[in-house]
């Protein structure tokens, strides 16, 4: 390729990157700007000075701080229990801990009601008297909702901690306490802060748990939800949305500026784990208790789904499934599946293309496109939904499934994009150069080499989009109507009609579908993509 041809090709690639960046600006930042400009001074003053707003801010902060503290502590204890003891069944425990990540947060709220409500299964079984409604109910529900995310982050960090500094410290005669202060705490500091930010943001921007368990104890997302879907007061909703942006933006900026620049291909030395029966017994006890709680939670949906009328008639029946489908469940399930499948396909395609340009076509525009691609991390789902509603309300896609697919793609885009970006960054940097020297075009190398090598990551990304679309209740709740409604939003509708058995059926369906998707991905990863290096000389 001549110098001129090289320059032309580089300009063309830069143009594609710019085009992608513009798409992200149009679908992410522009709607957000629209929401900000929707706020006038009068509404701002009115909302901010109202008693309900002040209370909701305080409630949100109280719940956020308490539930984050408990979630991160629990996640840290569980991660240590799995990674620093001789506990067996680590993968099984990890999977069970993550079960709540497969159901909508609103289901977690209703799971709490099924188990601990006034007529709850465990309330009746153990004659419990405390009410789960209000502050502590939201805190417990939020912990169940958010701790798996903190657990996944911290468990991974501890799993890949290098054992070498600990061996060196032992040789130098460091006490256990000194080793913790000198090695573990500095190593954990940044991931721990990241986990705290992520968990806090998740909790304070969720409306599912507080909507079910809050009662009069209202948090900001509930206030936003009520303002927008109840009173159709979009201006007030926008004001609350701006406040909800703050923690998400802070978390995003922290992650952006504190990213480790360490060697990603570094292979750590396994951590030495000494024998300690008491420590292991304690770890078994903690992991067992949390796993049991997660399983009871999932089982509660099954129980309620197959009893005739809880708590009056506990005879086993499948009538609830029939009733759920008769009440529109089948159409809403089809809606959900269409949204999830289309979002997954669209999301994976866009994530792959974008990640290719940022990871493998380096230039000054790459960094800008990378930043635009992860911006959605800083926008809570409810806020994104509200901004879309204000921006696209006069366009043909408003009120159709297309807008739900679009908003979900943007809402969940950053994580799958980062998966693809990391995967492609790790591939040999000269693959395209090899192609150029043997007369094979860049596009052919993408098709024959890059794409096949990314299959495992793309399947994982597909599952991420799918699972999240099946359970999301945030952005879609503002943009949906009766004909496009996804099944996750039926949970609240059924509860409102006192059909809690049907709500349980819906939660169970979402859980089973998501488990099937996760299981299929796991099977594919093990069966088709498991590498077994053979270092024969």
């Amino acid at each position, binding site marked *: 390729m001549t*110098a001129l041809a090289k320059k032309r090709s580089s300009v063309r690639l830069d143009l594609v990157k710019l085009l992608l960046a513009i798409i992200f600006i149009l679908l992410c930042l522009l709607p957000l700007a629209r929401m900000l400009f929707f706020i006038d001074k009068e509404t701002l003053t009115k909302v901010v000075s109202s008693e309900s707003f002040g209370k909701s801010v305080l409630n949100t902060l109280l719940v956020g701080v308490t539930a984050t503290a408990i979630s991160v502590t629990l996640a840290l204890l569980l991660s240590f229990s799995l990674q620093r003891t001789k506990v067996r069944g680590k993968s099984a425990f990890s999977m069970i801990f993550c079960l709540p990540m497969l159901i909508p947060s609103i289901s977690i709220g209703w799971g709490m009601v099924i188990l601990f409500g006034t007529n709850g299964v465990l309330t009746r079984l153990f004659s419990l008297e405390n009410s789960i409604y209000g502050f502590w109910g939201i805190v417990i529900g939020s912990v169940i909702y958010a701790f798996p995310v903190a657990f996944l982050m911290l468990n991974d960090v501890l799993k890949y901690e290098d054992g070498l500094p600990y061996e060196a410290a032992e040789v130098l005669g460091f006490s256990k306490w000194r080793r913790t202060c000198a090695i573990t705490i500095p190593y954990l500091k940044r991931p721990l802060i990241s986990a705290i930010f992520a968990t806090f943001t998740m909790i304070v921007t969720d409306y599912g748990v507080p909507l079910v368990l809050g009662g009069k104890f209202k948090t900001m997302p509930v206030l936003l939800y009520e303002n927008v879907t109840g009173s159709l007061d979009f201006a007030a909703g926008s004001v609350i949305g701006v406040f909800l942006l703050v923690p998400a933006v802070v978390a995003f900026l922290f992650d952006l500026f504190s990213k480790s620049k360490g060697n990603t291909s570094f292979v750590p030395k396994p951590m030495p784990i000494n024998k300690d029966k008491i420590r292991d017994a304690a770890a078994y006890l903690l992991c067992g208790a949390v796993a049991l709680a997660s399983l009871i939670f999932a089982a509660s949906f099954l129980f309620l789904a197959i009893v005739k009328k809880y708590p009056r008639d506990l005879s086993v029946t499948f009538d609830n499934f029939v009733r759920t489908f008769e009440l529109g469940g089948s159409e809403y399930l089809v809606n959900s599946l269409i949204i999830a499948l289309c979002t997954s396909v669209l999301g994976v395609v866009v994530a792959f293309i974008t990640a290719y340009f940022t990871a493998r076509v380096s230039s000054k525009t790459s960094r800008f496109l990378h930043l635009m691609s992860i911006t959605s991390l800083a926008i809570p789902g409810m806020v994104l939904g509200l901004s879309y509603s204000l921006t696209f309300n006069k366009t043909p896609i408003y009120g159709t499934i297309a807008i739900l697919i679009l908003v979900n793609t943007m809402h969940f885009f950053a994580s799958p994009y980062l998966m693809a970006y990391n995967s492609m960054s790790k591939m040999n940097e000269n693959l395209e*150069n090899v192609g*150029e020297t043997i*007369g*094979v075009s860049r596009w052919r190398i993408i098709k024959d080499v890059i794409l096949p090598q990314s299959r495992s990551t793309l399947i994982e990304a597909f599952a991420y989009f799918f699972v999240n679309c099946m359970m999301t209740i945030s952005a879609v709740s503002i943009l949906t109507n009766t004909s496009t409604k996804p099944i996750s939003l039926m949970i609240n509708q059924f509860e409102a009609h006192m059909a809690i058995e049907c709500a349980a059926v819906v939660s169970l369906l979402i859980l089973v579908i998501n488990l099937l998707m996760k299981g299929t991905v796991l099977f594919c990863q093990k069966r088709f993509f498991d590498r077994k290096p*053979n270092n024969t000389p």
Partner: protein
Amino acid sequence: MEDKILTVEHVCKYFDSQTALDDVSFDINRGEFLSILGPSGCGKTTMLRILIGLLASDSGKIIKDGEDITNAPASKRGMGIVFQNYALFENMSVLENVRYALKINKETRAGSAEKAKDMLQRVGLGEYIKKKPYELSGGQQQRVAIARTLVLNPDIILFDEPMSALDVATRLSLRKELKKIQREFGTTMIYITHDQEEAFALSDRIMVMEESRLSQIDTPENIIKNPANDYVKSFVIDNLRQKIDSLAKYASVDGGAEA
């Protein structure tokens, strides 16, 4: 009479305000093994990328077999390259890796599998054709990368520090293999390295580079006998001497023990 296959004339390259190559000129004979030796950042990889056509020079000429190839596409220069870490296609088998370029091109598609198998046989990998690259050792992966290049019958093969990630024992055995392959195929080879010992063990001539400039190009013997300047003396000769002194010290310790 010397048979020049490649001539590089006054090549310059700048990255923003930094000079990567400053008026570099040299030539290479057919069947010769030339090493480009220098520390990190001296411009040797930039030179290699300009030679193969992955990077355009800002000025100067590259002439191969009398033809100006300065602006020719990389695939039309009759050169092949073995990259650092080899850049093998991990999703393809060893055979598919070697066959890939032949299969893509309509003119070479017929009989491509046989040609690739034959080439793998010649580099001693006949029994590994169905394996994936990650199932091979570092040395075997290097041979796949060389076979992938050789199968296209290049006049010149360029090597971009291919052994820098390998352990000492593997490097020693691969040096022998590389020389064997060169003798068998008679291909001209240009080898980038920062390792003085490797350059002296492999090369017919060595080109020493210093901060974007060519310091000296000559046979290993002449570089030792007549270093062009203090830099060559210090970077090449003093470094080699240090290694020899260390070896001699250990040899005398062993000798003492035996005595």
